[in-house]
């Protein structure tokens, strides 16, 4: 299956891309996608995830054609 992965703000800067397409034959979750894209780096706490623009938890399953987005925490004011 094919998944559209998006990174916003400081995550985009860290990853170096805003948009990555990944292919997989395994069942995927948000956490597995992060691990695949970020070379198994641990998923930092406080990162927000969304599947098809809907808030999702790390273990949320992802289907073929889904868009998965990662947002860094923002607390400044």
């Amino acid at each position, binding site marked *: 299956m094919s998944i559209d992965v998006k990174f916003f703000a400081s995550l985009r800067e860290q990853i170096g891309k805003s948009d990555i397409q990944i292919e997989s034959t395994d069942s995927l979750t948000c956490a597995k996608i992060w691990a695949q894209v970020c070379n198994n780096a641990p998923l930092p706490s406080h990162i927000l995830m969304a599947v098809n623009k809907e*808030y999702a938890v790390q273990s949320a399953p992802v289907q073929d054609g889904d868009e998965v987005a990662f947002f860094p925490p923002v*607390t400044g*004011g």
Partner: protein
Amino acid sequence: MPKQLKHSKVLIVGLGGLGAPVSLYLAAAGVGHLVLVDYDHVDLSNLQRQIIHKTSHIGQEKTVSAQIKLQALVPELQITRFNQRLSKTSLNNMLSDINVVVDCSDNFMTRFAINAACVENGTPLVSGAAVRWKGQVAVFLPAQKHSPCYRCLYNNTEDETETCSQMGILAPLVGIIGSIQALEVIKVLLGIGQSLCGKLLTFDAYTETWRTLKLRKDPACPVCSQLITDN
């Protein structure tokens, strides 16, 4: 000017980059009573983005500096100042007659404390945050059964705050995010329009990208879930 606004009392936590436009717009729009909370003093480094303060106010308490500007704008505006760090008790005492709380603070610990108090008191919360190129706004209406709360979004783990003073921020970004917060406060006070309740509006200023995420109440949320008791 709608009478509902004149008779409204809004608590603003943080008189920094976000609190500046929030308080100015709410005062100008006709909100009758603002409660200003900030323990900090005006510093030269603040003036790049905290447009309510001015050079001659450096060293003053931010709530005092803000009061001077706000009452120059609206002399009849009622202002209550609180120049201390917030505690759970002080927050709960303050919320008894507050119509809306506006979170313009700059760290997770304060945000979690404000959220918990709003959930406990059923007080609407308009939450905004911004750092570097990124901003976000959400509205939580704890009196509504299906409204998520701030704690449904973030785990209360160790504080990993990126503050504006450490990481930098583009001044207009806090103006944009604070203006949206003020807009949402007015909508909640008047009960008009579609609020951002159940949504998180995010803005990436670098790519000029806006996104609205649909939020949901976490059935296991330790703050707002009725499944878990408070002990």
